[in-house]
């Protein structure tokens, strides 16, 4: 990458601060809508980190797939299920919080220790492929990673069909009160929830 090293450091610091503070906001904020928009910001900053690592193609894929598709999907899901509800209080919430936080902090200290103490066998920057990485990814995808590439297309097809089947609502074929056939294209009859008020 041909940016001066000081600029790289500044960009890295800003991007990682946005990533970490944004992620904290995603899990800690009260409003789920703010969380969803912060998540979009986190995804954009991760794409910026990829650009710092000379990976323009993956950065573009990150913006397209995560910000353009996954985040929009999450916002749509929030709009569909966003109902104000009073959550039942949990009795042992405090001990749960303490246990989960200590587990996370232990895992974090372990990971950071591994990051810092392990001796990474860095390769020399001379034979770095640099800006040509998109070409190399294309070569990989159509030679030695061809089978995973094709399997990924099958996976996406399965996910699409599965999502449609799971999210589909059963539509009645005729109106109950009048007995007339219902125009199925636009009308959705809501069915009774199956499992409410069980407990």
């Amino acid at each position: 990458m041909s940016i001066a090293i000081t600029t790289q450091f500044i960009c890295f610091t800003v991007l990682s601060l946005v990533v970490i503070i944004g992620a904290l906001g995603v899990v800690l904020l009260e409003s789920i809508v703010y969380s969803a928009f912060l998540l979009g910001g986190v995804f954009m900053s991760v794409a910026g980190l990829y650009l710092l690592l000379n990976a323009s193609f993956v950065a573009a894929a990150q913006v397209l797939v995560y910000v353009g598709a996954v985040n929009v999907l999450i916002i749509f899901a929030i709009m569909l299920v966003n109902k104000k509800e009073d959550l039942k209080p949990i009795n042992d919430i405090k001990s749960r919080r303490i246990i989960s936080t200590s587990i996370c902090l232990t895992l974090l200290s372990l990971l950071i220790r591994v990051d810092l103490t392990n001796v990474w066998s860095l390769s020399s920057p001379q034979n770095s492929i640099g800006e040509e990485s998109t070409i190399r990814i294309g070569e990989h995808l159509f030679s030695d990673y061809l089978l995973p590439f094709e399997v990924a297309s099958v996976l996406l097809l399965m996910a699409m069909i599965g999502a449609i089947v799971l999210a589909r609502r059963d539509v009645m074929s005729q109106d109950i009160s009048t007995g007339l056939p219902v125009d199925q294209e636009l009308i959705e009859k809501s069915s009774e929830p199956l499992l409410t008020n069980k407990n």
Partner: protein
Amino acid sequence: MNLESIPLQAFLIVSSVLFCIGIWGLLNSRNAVRVLMSIELMLNAVNINLMAFSSYIDNNLIQGQVFAIFVITVAAAEAAVGLAILLSLYRNRVTVDMESFNLLKW
């Protein structure tokens, strides 16, 4: 600072912190949508790791970037199916509170 580039450890620490935040959110969220968002955060942390290793250790063959693309694909499929499951759960239970999804509880 007389370093010639950002150290690899900096990227690894950022991704470790992001992963732990994701796990914390996964364990502590009451809202099912927020659980899905935490999973996306964890997948992104893994992707940062893969990209950093591919840029610093395997910078000629960059197989890590190909892996990151596959992870992005699987994450997109996971988000679609997860949100569809969430919608059908909401339709049956009329809530997204994680504490009420205890049908399989022992």
